[in-house]
């Protein structure tokens, strides 16, 4: 039974698989995990990844209104930014993140240093960050991920999938390599400089 199905689907051409992907991803709306797509198209994960990457490139470079994006091993169809002005006329306008500079700064620190405690964030920013952390949590761009094993057991903050979606990253590993490495390597004697 299972054997028969695989034999049958082994005959699918790349074009047919792309048609399947289009219809499946269209219906899903939400991002679909690679495993699920591989299962539906009866391909192994590696082959599926290749087909998806190829299809994404194909969509991007064709006269198409849609594109394919990858986020942490999930794939989602979405519109190309070029058509935003037309789409907005539909009336269902979704406002931009609308974050303050403080929020972007905080988000940047969490993104690069996650998991990060509030204390670390405040040391780097040099300013109290309570309210901005709350805002970012409200916007579902960061979340608490357990507590640090240091005195006071402070919360640890990490970025969310919504963060990746909102800023167009595939994964945290894809953050631009701004020479942060230097910072990570240097042990930072924060406690020497009182902030509060």
């Amino acid at each position, binding site marked *: *039974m*299972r054997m028969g199905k695989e034999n049958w689907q082994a005959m699918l051409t790349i074009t047919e698989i792309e048609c399947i992907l289009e219809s499946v991803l*269209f*219906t*899903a*709306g*939400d991002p679909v995990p690679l495993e699920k797509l591989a299962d539906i198209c009866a391909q192994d994960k590696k082959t599926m990844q290749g087909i998806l990457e190829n299809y994404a490139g194909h969509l991007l470079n064709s006269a198409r209104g849609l*594109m394919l*994006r990858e986020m942490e091993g999930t794939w*989602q*169809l*979405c*519109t*190309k*930014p*070029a058509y*935003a002005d037309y*789409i907005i006329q539909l009336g269902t306008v*979704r*406002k*931009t*993140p609308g*974050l303050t*500079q*403080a929020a*972007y*700064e905080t*988000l*940047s*620190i969490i*993104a*690069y240093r996650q998991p990060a405690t509030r204390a670390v964030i405040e040391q*780097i*920013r*040099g*300013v*109290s960050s*309570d*309210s901005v952390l709350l805002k970012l949590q409200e916007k579902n761009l960061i979340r608490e991920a357990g507590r640090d094993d240091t005195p006071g057991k402070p919360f640890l903050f990490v970025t969310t999938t919504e963060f990746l*979606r*909102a*800023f*167009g990253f595939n994964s945290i590993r894809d*953050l*631009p390599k*701004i*020479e*942060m490495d*230097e*910072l990570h390597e*240097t042990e*930072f*004697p924060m406690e*020497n*400089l*009182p*902030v*509060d």
Partner: protein
Amino acid sequence: MNSSLTEACTLKLDRFEGPFDLLFHLIEKNQIDLYDIPIVMVTDQYLDYLQGMQELDLDVASEFLVMAATLLHIKSRMLLPVHIEPDEEPTEDPRELLIRKLVAYRRHKEFAAVLAERGERWSQVFCKLPEPLPEVKREMVFDVSPVLLHERYEAVMLQLRARMNQSRGRMTRILDNEKVSLKTKIREILHGLSHLAAGVRLRFSQLFDGRVKTRLEVATGFLAMLEVVKLGRATVEQPAMFSEIYLAPVQGGNQEKGHADGEGELAGHADDNGN
């Protein structure tokens, strides 16, 4: 640290998110090399700025004051003559820590700008709402188990036995409710039959008190009547449909014996039901 106070002051300190942000502004404004900060100049400008805030009668957040203190401390160390022992390692530049912190802050400030730009760009991307999908039932690979087959048979047969016992129990319960009145009715009939004048028949309707006659009692009486007939103690006649039923005692030498038998059967009957 008072966060609401801090927030209020941050707002009042124009667009500066914190002391680093203000320092940065000064460094950029003066096109200073971050790694060789003219600490005297920067400190003076920083303090001037805070002064300006105070002149405008604005509260200055504690973080800004702490930074001012730090700058003054560095400045004083820079101004003091450095006394180096011959075999001592050169003293760390008092600015070192501040510089490192500023560098770290700058990187994040730069990335914050990248994020803002990306956020703007990606907010132009739209997705579609998911469509409702039916739940799919996919049959597992056809695996069968002889053990399961056997188990199910035993289980279903045990259930059957339980069900049989249950219905047996139900019937017993019905008879339990019934047995006293049935026995009583038989006795009543036998009693009535034995006290009849010669040639007179017992009327079925006579068996019931008109005030308390229930359908159940009538049914029980009917059963009792049949029982009496079965015992050979009476014959019945109903001249017409739905008319009165007449019971005539069976006369003869077997009356006593029959009576005894009847009692015996009744006793047995009661015992059966009692168990």
